[in-house]
């Protein structure tokens, strides 16, 4: 098999000493990022991205994707020990993780969470290994119209499948598109939407926006909620780990179900957050011990963690194969590809074989390394949470500011970061989802280019979007996804009216 030998070559690339070193550093940094409130996956990667401009792209993406794995692992630590989700996708982990810690079973809960994360991630990587090349090969036939249709599909599924207020998702997407449009137009050379402000000529860099939206705003939210970190003690020794592992095969059904849910939600941009809740909800419904959920049931830790990690990993599939990220962090990584001079999209599998397979191999290794490191270092990272917020917050904010500055060596960007910090705070309080905005900001230019080129080719006629079977299918699928949510709401509403009581299962 051609791809198999490519994967083996990838392992050779990923297993070189300095790449393994980057992997370990990345995982450690990622855990820190995942543990600390105010630093998250997208934000942590965004801050470090400028430091990698001079690096070899393969090493750079191994470092950054390892941060991503670390952040996925790290989120579970705070959820279980402190009942504070370090990341939004680990909210569901607190439901059963914290009760377990209260019962003194913290070590068991943590082992279960990490192992579940690992299983989820590996299933995501397997999906990428086998499916991504096929998708990429298929996508080589895409023209501008097809690409625009795929973008459309992404955005429509965001709106249709999203759990937030759909108008708010739509508005959030529009803001992202418009922010992407600010500055010099690459085709005509016109200055767009700058309103004669010289600083806006460069446009809005997505990294600055991400650091503000996800980093600074998170600090505002944390102080507002007045979090007091009161954690449970955790000691993980080999005995606990082995005992927990011995008990895991019993939950194979939950693990498989959550992996599938996670992979699906990751490829379609439902995201890790939705996946973790769905995994939890499904496990609760199908488990024999469903009534125990919320009281410290190990299955309630396994289900969301597997799903979240599977989704987080699978989100990289469309990013690699199509150049369309499935999550905010994947969007930031995609932006990195462009900065390192790689053109994301299906051609990546043809032109940059070493890079792609090196990355895929590093996903396997990174997750193995992540599991071992996180099991070994839990007490250390739990200790980080005991540092008073008054010390942690200024450090995070200074690092955010440095990150924002290094993107374009501009102090104006630090102001923008502050502005988007406030925007992020208000938007989060009002229930505007932020991920669509980042996605649209990263993809905006490329979606617009595809749209323009498609229209140029057809002389301005919109018929190009149903000119052949492929593009028509994509457009129809987009429409179905777009209206799926509103229609199912309507059906649920009608049914609950008919029965005179709320529809069961609507919560999931």
């Amino acid at each position, binding site marked *: 098999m051609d791809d198999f030998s490519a994967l083996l070559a990838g392992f050779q690339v990923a297993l070189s000493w300095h790449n393994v070193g980057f992997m370990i550093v990345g995982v450690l940094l990622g855990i820190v990022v995942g543990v600390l409130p105010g630093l998250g996956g997208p934000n942590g990667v965004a801050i470090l991205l*400028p*430091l990698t401009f001079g690096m070899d792209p393969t090493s750079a993406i191994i470092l950054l994707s390892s941060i991503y794995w670390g952040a996925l692992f790290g989120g579970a630590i705070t959820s279980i020990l402190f009942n504070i989700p370090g990341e939004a996708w680990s909210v569901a982990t607190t439901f059963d993780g914290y009760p377990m810690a209260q019962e003194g079973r913290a070590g068991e809960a943590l082992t279960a969470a990490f192992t579940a994360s690992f299983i989820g991630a590996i299933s995501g990587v397997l999906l990428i290994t086998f499916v991504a090349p096929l998708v990429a090969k298929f996508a080589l036939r895409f023209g501008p119209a097809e690409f625009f249709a795929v973008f459309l599909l992404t955005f429509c599924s965001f709106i249709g499948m999203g759990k937030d*207020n759909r*108008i*708010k998702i*739509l*508005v959030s997407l*529009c*803001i992202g*598109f*418009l922010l992407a*449009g600010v500055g010099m*137009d690459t*085709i*005509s050379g*016109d200055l*767009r*939407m700058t*309103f004669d402000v010289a600083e806006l000529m460069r446009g809005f860099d997505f990294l600055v926006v991400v650091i503000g939206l996800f980093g*600074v705003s998170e*600090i*505002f939210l944390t*102080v*507002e*909620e*007045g*979090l*007091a*970190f009161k954690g449970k003690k955790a000691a993980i020794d080999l005995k606990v780990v082995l005992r927990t592992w011995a008990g895991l095969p019993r939950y194979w059904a939950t693990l498989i179900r959550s992996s599938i849910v996670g992979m699906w939600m990751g490829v379609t941009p439902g995201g890790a957050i939705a996946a973790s809740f769905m995994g939890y909800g499904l496990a609760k419904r199908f488990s024999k011990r469903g009534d125990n959920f919320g009281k410290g049931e190990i299955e309630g830790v396994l289900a969301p963690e597997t799903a979240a990690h599977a989704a987080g990993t699978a989100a990289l599939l469309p990013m690699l194969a199509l150049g369309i990220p499935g999550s905010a962090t994947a969007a930031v990584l995609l932006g990195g590809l462009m900065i390192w001079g790689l053109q994301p999209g299906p051609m990546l599998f043809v032109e940059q074989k070493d890079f792609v397979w090196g990355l895929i191999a590093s996903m396997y290794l990174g997750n193995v390394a992540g599991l071992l490191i996180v099991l070994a270092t839990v007490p250390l990272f739990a200790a980080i949470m005991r540092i*008073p*917020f*008054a*010390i942690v*917050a*200024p*450090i995070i*904010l*200074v*690092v955010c*500011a*440095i990150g924002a*500055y*290094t993107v374009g*060596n501009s*102090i104006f960007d*630090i*102001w923008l970061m*502050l502005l988007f*910090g*406030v925007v992020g*705070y*208000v938007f989060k*309080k*009002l229930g505007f989802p932020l991920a669509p905005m980042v996605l649209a900001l990263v993809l905006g230019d490329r979606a*617009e280019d595809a*749209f*323009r080129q498609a*229209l*140029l080719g057809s002389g*301005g006629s919109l018929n190009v979007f149903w000119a052949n079977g492929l593009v028509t299918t994509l457009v129809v699928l987009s429409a179905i996804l777009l209206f799926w949510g509103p229609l199912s709401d309507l059906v649920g509403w009608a049914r609950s009216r008919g029965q005179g009581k709320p529809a069961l299962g609507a919560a999931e």
Partner: protein
Amino acid sequence: MSLSADIEQPDDPGARGPSKRAVEIVVSLILIGLAAAVLYDSYGRGAGWNGGPESGFFPARVGWIFLAGSLFLLVQAFREPPAIFATWSQLLMVAKVFGPLALFVVLVEPLGIYAAAAIFTAVFMPIVGGARWYTVIATSVLVPLVCFVVFEIEFLVPLPKGPLEAMFGY
């Protein structure tokens, strides 16, 4: 930690705050304003067809969707059930972070990022509370110093520097 003690005081006036509806309305009005600005700008440059889509073509179309969505949000905002956005004491806490942070950004230009970070940390920590004076001093010296070593010396990333660094020859 006195941070939590500040907030957990169960005082009645502290439970009041701006209503969520008011904030929703203000935000949707701002969004409508932005949408109008986008449309004005796009049509000003040309959003039609001139041998190909003009530069305002795509933003204008997104702008119309944006405007429609924002108008819908405004309508929705009026039907928002009464709730508060955040209590005044919570907003005060946010302001306590925002104030020093804004000061920090102002100081970056004249003093450089490291000195500004030191001042920021020294101002921020007593305001938020929960740290003793020697921790404050240690943190505000160490944080910029570590950043300096990491970025300036290790990664060779040039960050804004001011008179203080110039004194040491950087």
